[in-house]
């Protein structure tokens, strides 16, 4: 029986040593203070067990004292492990340090005085009780803390708690047992319990993939239902990404993570600082390892990234987690695309409704005048002068309606890609003059149009009618959005070694805010604010301007300051390129002041 007891005790010591060395290896690989303290604690515990076995063979002086110091050290190590994960109040820290220190001092003094005497039962009591306090508090703390954690983290914390708590109980029982311990059966029983606790602690430290799968499995059923909800009903990309990330971190037991569209926006992030997010996105591979795992998934034309970062209680990110994340991210990507399409359609639908409202309002203006005067003609009470004036006004209003309808048709042609340019070589100066001249009847004295044109002709290959429409639109806007009056300047310059002409239309009007400038040239991207509420417009003019200038291989831009004025610039190549560039027809405005 004594022989069996010896073998079991050897096995226990070897198992504890293996556990300590494994913890040391894990610390060397992953670093971090908590892992270091835990490795130290387990190694010291293994040392106690090994010294216990050596004591039987070799009667080395002071071996009891070294065992006692190592034993207290292991308890303090576990306390430090707990403190590193979840800080303890200062006064408890002082107590946790003072108690073992005093005991170590006492043990050392005793060792010097009588090196070979074994510890008295009172001394053993005090030692085990102190160890029990140092280890017991973290055990209870981890157990309580675990209930608020995701299942995988919770299981891991509980394994660790159970293992360490079990050890403490066994040691207390051993000391309390007193004379019963001399019974070899009891001694063997205790050793076997310790032996069984070792794999429990090890599973808490480094759970194998099959165990992690088991921990995860009850939540996977919930996840499947949640993912279905998410993919079918998430109202927008952000909500979907946030919920998807929540499930991802939960299932792998991570503490932090993010979902982002690569090269674009971060859709969701949790537990990460701004700076961390940008550095992680810049080089996710650099950060990856045991503590960070990421997968890329297809997302529209680019790709998305789903990244999770481990916390102190996160089990390992192994191939199992990566495989799971990969499969999961595929669904997330599909969901994000679905929501993206839905959002785009909803935005388009809103824009079209908004446009129909605006367009009908714009058409009703001239229509009201034409119908109104017609009713007065039919009523037969208009005098001759009034009738002549009315006819002139009706003619102008009919032209307005015609221009509006043309604008809408032109936009429709652009959508269908049916626009064909009819280029001819003309002097840009005459195009500008003609555009300004055509607006003369509708421009009042408060808005003088000043033309700053070069003396020499500026010949360009353009579709005259369309560029004139663009310029007329810009000048008309400059006047409309300058309710307090002020001159409108049209300036023509030759730039880039005589290859490009720039036409600038400058006003002193209400100006355009930075955010509004972004949507100005998009379809229906009219700036709506109290300043513009009384100014007619469909939001098609500048969109058409951009597209038509784009067809010429040129570009249109704006510089503006609120309350100061705006300068729109049209840059046109003097020679038309063979194939006009592709047009973007799907842009939709998102800002409305």
């Amino acid at each position, binding site marked *: 029986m004594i022989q069996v007891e010896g073998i079991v005790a050897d096995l226990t010591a070897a198992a504890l040593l293996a556990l300590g060395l494994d913890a040391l290896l894990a610390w060397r690989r992953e670093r971090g203070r908590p892992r270091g303290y835990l490795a130290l604690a387990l190694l010291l515990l293994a040392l106690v067990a090994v010294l216990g076995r050596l004591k039987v063979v070799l009667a080395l002086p002071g071996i009891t004292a070294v065992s006692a110091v190592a034993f207290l050290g292991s308890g303090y190590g576990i306390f430090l492990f707990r403190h590193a994960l979840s800080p303890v109040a200062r006064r408890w820290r002082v107590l946790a340090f003072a108690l073992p220190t005093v005991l170590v001092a006492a043990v050392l003094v005793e060792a010097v005085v009588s090196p070979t005497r074994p510890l008295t039962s009172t001394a053993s009591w005090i030692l085990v009780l102190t160890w029990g306090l140092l280890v017991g508090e973290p055990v209870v703390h981890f157990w309580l803390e675990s209930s608020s954690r995701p299942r995988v983290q919770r299981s891991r914390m509980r394994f660790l708690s159970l293992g360490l708590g079990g050890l403490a109980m066994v040691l207390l029982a051993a000391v309390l047992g007193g004379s019963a311990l001399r019974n070899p059966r009891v001694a063997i029983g205790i050793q076997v319990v310790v032996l069984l606790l070792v794999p429990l602690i090890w599973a808490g430290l480094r759970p194998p993939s099959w165990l992690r799968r088991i921990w995860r499995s009850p939540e996977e059923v919930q996840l499947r239902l949640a993912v279905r909800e998410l993919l079918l009903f998430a109202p927008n990309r952000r909500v979907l990404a946030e919920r998807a990330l929540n499930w991802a971190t939960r299932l792998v037991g991570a503490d932090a993570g993010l979902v982002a569209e690569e090269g674009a926006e971060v859709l969701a992030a949790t537990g990460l600082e701004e700076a961390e997010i940008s550095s992680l996105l810049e080089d996710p591979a650099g950060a990856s390892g045991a503590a960070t795992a990421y997968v890329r998934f297809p997302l529209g034309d680019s790709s998305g990234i789903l990244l999770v970062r481990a916390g102190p209680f996160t089990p390992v990110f192994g191939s199992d987690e990566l495989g799971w994340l990969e499969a999961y991210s595929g669904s997330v990507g599909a969901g994000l695309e679905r929501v993206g399409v839905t959002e785009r359609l909803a935005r388009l639908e809103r824009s079209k409704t908004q446009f129909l409202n605006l367009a009908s309002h714009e058409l009703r203006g001239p229509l009201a005048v034409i119908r109104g005067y017609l009713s007065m003609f039919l009523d037969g*009470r*208009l005098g001759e002068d009034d009738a002549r004036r009315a006819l002139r006004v009706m003619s102008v209003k009919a032209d307005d309606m015609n221009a509006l309808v043309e604008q809408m048709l032109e936009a429709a042609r652009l959508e269908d890609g049916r626009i064909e340019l009819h280029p001819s070589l003309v002097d840009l100066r005459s195009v500008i003059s003609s555009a300004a001249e055509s607006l003369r009847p509708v421009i009042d004295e408060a808005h003088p149009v000043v033309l700053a044109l070069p003396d020499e002709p500026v010949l360009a290959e353009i579709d005259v009618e369309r560029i004139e429409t663009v310029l007329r639109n810009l000048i008309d806007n400059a006047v409309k959005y300058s309710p307090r009056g002020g001159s409108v300047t049209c300036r023509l310059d030759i730039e880039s070694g005589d290859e490009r002409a720039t036409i600038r239309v400058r006003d002193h009007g209400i100006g355009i805010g930075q955010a509004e400038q972004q949507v100005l040239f998009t379809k229906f991207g009219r700036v709506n604010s109290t*300043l513009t509420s*009384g100014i007619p417009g469909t939001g098609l003019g500048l969109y058409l301007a951009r597209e038509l200038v784009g067809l010429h291989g040129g570009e249109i831009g704006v510089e503006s300051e609120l309350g100061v004025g705006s300068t729109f610039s049209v840059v046109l190549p003097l020679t038309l390129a063979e194939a006009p560039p592709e047009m973007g027809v799907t842009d939709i405005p998102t800002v409305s002041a």
Partner: protein
Amino acid sequence: MELGAAFSPAGRLGWVPFPPGLGVRTRVGRIRTRLSVGTNSPSILIVEDDESIATMYRLQLELEGYAVRVASSVSAAQASIMATGVDLLLLDVGLPGADGFELLIWMAHNGHDFPVLLLSNYSSPDLVERARKLGVVDYRIKSHTTPVDLAQIVATILARSG
């Protein structure tokens, strides 16, 4: 008032007033303004920034014998109301700067309770509801309301409030 009634072709020919709160308030306003104008022809103020529409309505209403003034913005309208009284206000909604509703609120705060006919080319139910709450007598779509129709509506409103 049903929106459909106001905006349908049948609705624009016949005047369908907002039901509550018209008679007494407008009668008081009318007496006050009559005294201030000192003439028998009712005074109408058109608040409209589109000059061609304002001119057209003015022409028709003057043919009907009303004294018509035009203001192209809310501030001009306020000045006009304070300078001389008004029997009826024809108000556009979309105006540069402050809109027609702001003028209605200003009127309520300053005790100006003559009838208001809102004229706009916007026709959302929200606008109609807001106008109704602010005590507007009627809401008409300009392109549906010819000057001849308008003259009839104006006559009906003035007859009721008188």
